């Protein structure tokens, strides 16, 4: 293998030769530069290959033939190889990207670039502390030179500020090295590590100075104002190097120093790292400049890795996996984003909407922010999982909480940004797309996915990128060029086929969910046939959600479960974001969902007690005092999906604003994921007590309150789809309540609600969506009298509301009947009161739904409307049939589950004799009810038709109007604020307290961020003062501790 | 009242004061001074309430008399302002901006007397009558009997008695 030394030699040599070239031979110079960089990459890649494939041992490179400490030595190991590859690659790609600039500025700039890359490689390779200092200096000078490549005037001052800080750092480092050398008598890093115990005591000023100098290069909070100015003003390609390569190199330098300092210094690294991580993410929240925002994010991610460096004592052999995962995800994503930013003309975040004309670039952007947010299947996800479990296993809960909090903040602004891209107005300037600028971006995307695969392989868990559902979903990315109907057919076929192949594997409980997902999903997909064109982005997102859902119910272990949870969250987020005005709602959805996901992560991590993963069934083995906390974390996480009251504010907007066929997916199917989680949780952990409080009782109250308040909010809603969305909150409240009853029938009722809610809510959403599509509005009071024009939609709504309201003979009644029997066998009384109250309130919004849309007065502009498109009607009719079948024969679905539940709750099952269903308390015969009602109804209807056979059909204004006549349909249709008296009586219960709470919280975060933004006033002296103050404060804090 | 009249007299060219009662008096005002007088009375003299605005048709003199009745709530006295308008193409400026209620009165006067009030809100919309096609019915030159006979079919055999005579006949047939 070529010696690693040639990396340095090639760069130096090329830079040297550049000096000989004439100024006019710029193309040659550029070619030489590229050749050198390619060669350097070749060496690094070769070494990576050697270490990975051949499993070779690390190689020491002795420069002058002497072993250390007599001469400088370098080392090439797997880590070094990977990091140099990262540095060289980002150098090469940036050089490609910088083609225009480099050609314009000439050979000097190329030389500076080469020196910068070389210096960074040197920092990585060297094992000599003074040599490290030299490379630091080289890197600093080259960096300052590169900063000036930018056309931005501010870059000059940013470069100058950098020089100030770099000099301060150098001084500290040099003094530290002198003292250390004095103390240990060696400059070799390993030698220092072995030699001095004095250095490791923690009080040593020498080591402190060295360490703080290196850490200062990592831009710790708050001594990082200079770095932000650089990020903001430098050329993006340089920022890519600065963020990806420099960050990696300096982090490795910090790692080397920690190697010297030993475990005593770990807490310092962790402390600085985590403070930087949280603070930088918080400060990023109010940023509007894209590059500055990325700068904050870079600082935050570097801080996170620094914190991980500080945790190497507990990470053990997973140290490299975790730190590397985070570092690579960050570097690749950040480099990619900086390169992308060079393609965008405007510097405000909404200007990125220009990307919308390039689906490929959107995909790149998604890849990058998914990597940054630690979403599957990228390295950051695996690293986060490992980190969480190890931290929780060692009881470092506070650190874990801070990391998750910071990550949530970061996801918040990243996804907000993505929302801008998808939803904001496109700026006039298009994306400047030249191949040499596009190539680095594409390369970063490919690298990201490749690393995702690699990390999946290394993780010790199942590689997510090999999971069939996910692959199926991802394959739709490649099929985007096909017309929508072909993709739709493929999606349906794929899901049904998967179900047919796997249905034997599920237990009855999971079978219900799998039928809803894999058969119910395709039924809703039928409605998607009405969309024409290619519908870019829809199918990958939808299939990602379904893949997540499928993997969720198939998951047996905690890792698979959590990974699936993240996937379905992300997929559904993209789906929801597609709605016309859904930008803020999709954002709040993803924030709540990720918050919930982090709770689940924390819960699993706590429960794992250090194990990489565990069987979900073994949750039942947990004991006090851990168990209730795990229970709370997991339950909270799942309840963000079921939109339990307090965590519900994302739902109405997200479901209401979504597209016609998306609303039923996210409402009818996605919400069930939360319920499934709760079922798994309760099935394994059962009743838990915390400080004497029965947690399932708390769940009962939450379920009951959700049912009541969801219903109450629904009745005051003017928007049809939002009304249905609020109704979902209520219905999910019922289901949560049923589960929390913790008895046989309660669970059966919850499952009944799962099935029913899927059918009727999908149907109602489709119906409302079809009507909204035709009328062009979702405000119910603008509609009216559509019954004759849209009879099929009306029938679907009618059947739907009868079923929702629980009136016999339709299937909703079965749910109510089981509910009564369930509460009779429970010993809790008071929450029932709330639930009883919630029941009839459903009538209010249901009646309003059907009345104000289909009955009443037809409006002028709707007189020529047609029935909703066939493909939207078809699934509705299927649902009508399903409802009727399920109403007559609930046993089809429930009987096996009933038997299955016997193993958890042997008592209180149902008795299925003939067509009669009986419990310990009562009985119910759906067939008899249906026949009786139909016979009575039919004969009376026939009688009325007979006696009224000559009735005159009249039109809508032929109503008695106190001797007057109606003026306009708008003023005759009683629809707006339909339940005004009810608002008078009970409106106080629907004050938006929860919304105020959450918006208060976000306002507070923003205000805090704004306040501390005053730190960064752009003045170099202030920044220098920050730096000094940082060093001093950290020193005193550290020695004081 | 006299006192008020003499004060006003110095400011406005007023006609004679007709005192109906202690607390009720009428005075005639030229059309062009009405507005300023109303404002004066409302803002300076405390006549804050427009009780009514009505009209009298002096057919013989060929004038309409408008009566603005104002009340001072605190002193409990009422002053009526009379404005004489020529009957032909009678037009009066609107005072709806001084008292919004005046708009309603003006609509009524427009409909029943045909007096125009330019710029008064909704003054040309139907007020009480629907589909009226003749001259305004409160004008004295409108012959209501003739109109009724032309438009409505009368039931034959209708007799009108003087009530007093009729009852005398009934109670004392043939008597004194």
């Amino acid at each position: 293998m070529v010696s690693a030394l040639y990396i340095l030699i090639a760069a130096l040599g090329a830079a040297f030769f550049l000096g000989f070239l004439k100024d006019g031979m710029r193309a040659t110079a550029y070619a030489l530069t590229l050749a050198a960089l390619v060669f350097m990459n070749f060496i690094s890649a070769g070494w990576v290959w050697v270490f990975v494939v051949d499993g070779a041992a690390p190689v020491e490179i002795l420069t002058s033939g002497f072993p250390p400490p007599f001469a400088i030595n370098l080392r090439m190991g797997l880590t070094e190889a990977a990091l140099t590859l990262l540095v060289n690659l980002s150098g090469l790609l940036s050089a490609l990207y910088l083609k225009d600039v480099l050609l314009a500025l000439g050979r000097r700039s190329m030389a500076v670039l080469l020196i910068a890359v070389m210096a960074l490689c040197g920092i990585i390779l060297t094992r000599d502390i003074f040599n490290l200092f030299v490379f630091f200096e080289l890197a600093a000078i080259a960096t300052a030179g590169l900063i000036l490549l930018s056309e931005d005037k501010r870059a000059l001052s940013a470069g100058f500020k950098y020089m100030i800080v770099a000099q301060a750092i150098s001084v500290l480092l040099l003094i530290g090295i002198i003292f250390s050398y004095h103390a240990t008598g060696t400059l070799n890093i390993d030698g220092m590590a072995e030699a001095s115990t004095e250095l490791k005591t923690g009080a040593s000023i020498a080591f402190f100075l060295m360490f703080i100098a290196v850490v200062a290069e990592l831009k710790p909070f708050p001594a990082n104002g200079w770095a932000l100015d650089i990020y903001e003003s430098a050329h993006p390609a340089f920022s890519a190097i600065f963020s990806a390569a420099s960050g990696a190199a300096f982090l490795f330098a910090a790692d080397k120093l920690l190697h010297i300092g030993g475990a005593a210094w770990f807490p310092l690294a962790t402390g600085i790292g985590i403070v930087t991580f949280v603070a930088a993410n918080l400060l990023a929240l109010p940023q509007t400049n894209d590059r500055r925002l990325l700068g904050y994010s870079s600082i935050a991610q570097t801080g996170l890795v620094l914190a991980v460096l500080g945790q190497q004592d507990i990470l053990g052999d997973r140290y490299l996996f975790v730190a590397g995962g985070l570092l690579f995800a960050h570097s690749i994503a950040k480099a990619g984003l900086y390169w992308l930013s060079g393609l965008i003309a405007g510097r405000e975040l909404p200007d990125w909407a220009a990307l919308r004309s390039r689906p490929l670039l959107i995909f790149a952007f998604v890849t990058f922010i998914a990597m940054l947010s630690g979403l599957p299947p990228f390295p950051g996800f695996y690293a986060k999982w490992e980190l969480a479990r190890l931290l929780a296993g060692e009881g470092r809960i506070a650190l874990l909480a801070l990391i998750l909090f910071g990550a949530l903040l970061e996801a918040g602004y990243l996804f907000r940004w993505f929302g801008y891209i998808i939803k904001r107005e496109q700026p006039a300037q298009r994306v400047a797309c030249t191949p040499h600028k596009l190539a680095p971006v594409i390369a970063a995307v490919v690298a990201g996915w490749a690393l995702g695969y690699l990390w999946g392989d290394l993780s010790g868990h199942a590689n997510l990128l090999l999971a069939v559902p996910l692959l199926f979903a991802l394959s739709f990315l490649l099929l985007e060029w096909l017309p929508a109907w072909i993709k739709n057919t493929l999606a349906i076929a794929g899901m049904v086929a998967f179900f047919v192949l796997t249905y034997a594997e599920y237990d009855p409980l999971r079978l219900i969910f799998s039928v809803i997902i894999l058969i119910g999903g395709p039924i809703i997909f039928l409605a998607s046939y009405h969309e024409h064109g290619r519908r870019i982005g829809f199918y990958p997102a939808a299939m990602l959600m379904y893949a997540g859902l499928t993997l969720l119910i198939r998951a047996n272990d905690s890792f698979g479960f959590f990974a699936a949870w993240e996937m379905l969250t992300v997929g559904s987020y993209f789906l929801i974001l597609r709605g016309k005005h859904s930008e803020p709602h999709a954002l709040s959805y993803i924030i709540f969902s990720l918050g919930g996901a982090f709770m689940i992560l924390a819960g699993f991590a706590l429960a794992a007690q250090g194990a990489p993963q565990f069987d979900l069934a073994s949750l039942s083995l947990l004991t006090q005092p851990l168990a209730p906390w795990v229970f709370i974390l997991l339950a909270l996480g799942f309840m963000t999906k079921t939109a339990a009251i307090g965590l519900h504010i994302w739902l109405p907007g997200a479901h209401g604003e979504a597209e016609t066929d998306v609303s039923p997916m996210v409402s009818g199917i996605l919400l069930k994921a939360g319920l499934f989680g709760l079922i798994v949780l309760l099935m394994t952990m059962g009743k838990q007590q915390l400080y004497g409080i029965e947690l399932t009782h708390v769940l009962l109250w939450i379920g009951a309150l959700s049912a009541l308040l969801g219903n109450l909010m629904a009745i005051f809603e003017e928007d049809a789809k939002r009304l249905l969305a609020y109704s979902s909150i209520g219905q999910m409240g019922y289901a949560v309540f049923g589960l929390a009853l913790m008895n046989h029938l309660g669970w059966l009722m919850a499952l009944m609600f799962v099935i029913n809610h899927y059918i009727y809510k999908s149907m109602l959403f489709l119906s409302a969506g079809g009507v909204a599509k035709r009328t062009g509005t979702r405000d119910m009071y603008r509609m009216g009298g559509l019954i004759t024009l849209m009879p099929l939609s009306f029938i679907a709504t009618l059947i739907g509301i009868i079923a929702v309201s629980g009136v016999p003979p339709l299937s909703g009644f079965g749910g109510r009947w089981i509910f009564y029997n369930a509460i009779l066998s429970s010993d809790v009384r008071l929450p029932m009161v709330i639930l009883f109250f919630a029941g009839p309130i459903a009538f209010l919004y249901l009646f309003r739904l059907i009345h104000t849309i289909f009955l009443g007065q037809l409006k002028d502009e709707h007189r020529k409307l047609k029935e909703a498109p066939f493909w939207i009607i078809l699934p509705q009719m299927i649902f009508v049939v399903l409802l009727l079948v399920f109403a007559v024969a609930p046993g089809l679905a429930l009987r096996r589950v009933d038997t299955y539940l016997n193993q958890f709750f042997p008592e209180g099952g149902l008795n299925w004799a003939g067509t009669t269903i009986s419990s310990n308390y009562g009985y119910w015969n759906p067939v008899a009810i249906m026949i009786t009602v139909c016979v009575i109804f039919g004969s009376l209807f026939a009688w009325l038709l007979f006696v009224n056979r000559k009735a005159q059909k009249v039109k809508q204004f032929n109503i008695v109007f106190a001797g007057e006549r109606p003026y306009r349909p708008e003023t005759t249709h009683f629809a707006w604020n339909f339940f005004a008296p009810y608002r008078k009586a009970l409106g106080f219960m629907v004050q938006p307290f929860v919304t105020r709470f959450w918006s208060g919280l976000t306002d507070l975060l923003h205000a805090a961020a704004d306040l501390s933004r005053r730190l960064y006033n752009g003045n170099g002296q202030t920044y220098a003062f920050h730096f000094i103050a940082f060093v001093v404060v950290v020193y005193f804090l550290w020695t004081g501790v | 009242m006299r006192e008020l009249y003499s004060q006003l007299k110095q400011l406005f060219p007023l006609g004679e004061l007709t005192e109906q009662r202690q607390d009720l008096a009428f005075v005639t005002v030229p059309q062009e001074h009405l507005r300023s007088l109303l404002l004066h009375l409302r803002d300076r003299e405390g006549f804050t309430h427009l009780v009514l605005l009505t009209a009298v048709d002096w057919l013989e003199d060929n004038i309409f008399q408008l009566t603005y009745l104002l009340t001072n709530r605190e002193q409990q006295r009422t002053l009526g302002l009379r404005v004489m308008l020529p009957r032909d193409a009678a037009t009066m400026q609107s005072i709806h901006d001084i008292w919004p209620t005046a708009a309603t009165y003006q609509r009524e006067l427009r409909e029943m007397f045909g007096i125009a009030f330019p710029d008064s809100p909704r003054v040309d919309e139907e007020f009480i009558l629907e589909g009226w096609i003749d001259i305004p019915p409160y004008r004295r030159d409108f012959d209501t009997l003739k109109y009724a006979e032309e438009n409505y079919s009368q039931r034959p055999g209708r007799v009108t008695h003087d009530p007093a005579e009729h009852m005398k006949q009934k109670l004392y047939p043939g008597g004194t």
Partner: protein
Amino acid sequence: MEFDWMKIPYALLTLFIVVNYGFLLNALIQKIAARVGRRYGIPIWQNYVDLIKNYGLRSSITHGAMFYLGPVFRLSGGVGLLLFVPAIYGSYMFSNLSFAGDLILALYFIFFGTLGMALGAGESGHPYAAIGVSRGLSQVTTSELPLALAVFSVALQYQTLSVTEIVAAQQGGILNWTLFTNPVAVAAAMLSFLGSMMRPPFDVVLAPQEIPIGPPTEYHSSYLALMQTNRAIFPVAKIVIYMNLFFGGASDWPTFFLKVFLIYLWSAFVGVVFPRFRVEQSIRWFLIWAVPLGILSILMV
């Protein structure tokens, strides 16, 4: 499943008896209310005459399909409710179709007619109909709550949801009635009963003169006849539930007639004394007076 076809003529016989009893009972109650106002009141057969008259009307109009279905829903609700509950305790002949379901079926079937009627009224396009429905539904949310709590309490007390078994548990003397074994629940239920009978003070739904009788504003002739029939059946059917749950049921027709009459009288008694509540007033009234009783009853069982 074996089905005893004789149940159908038996059920029809019950229906026949109840329809007639309902017509007479309604007239009687109206007469009693009239006598409170020192009036003579309507003839006792007046409801029959009205019914025939309405069938005898020659013309009728229709606003559309749902307009037909409204009264049909309404009457089906009444008939179904009656038939799903055993009328006479211990009698096979008058146990109706109670094999189809228990108490919960009956309670939820009450809404069948209400919902259908609301839809039919909505189809008429009349704003007053919608206003009436809005008021009615608003009121029903709280007026049904005490009943639901009382039923829950009674079901807990007897550990069954079967109407027959609840009645069976109350046999053997007046002191075994729920009225005496669980008086709080009965009190709550009887307050709720007031709210469901469309009599003052809770009749703002119909509010003649203000929103001309609310939902049925547009209904006439045979539509109205169907609804009148329901007016005869539905209160009785509903009272049968109350009677069975709280007042020991009835084991023969005379007892049945007497108990139904007395329970019905309770709402008339309150109705003639009190003026009408607005919707939000009645909601508050139920929440303040009746619901706490209901909560107390489920806590005390």
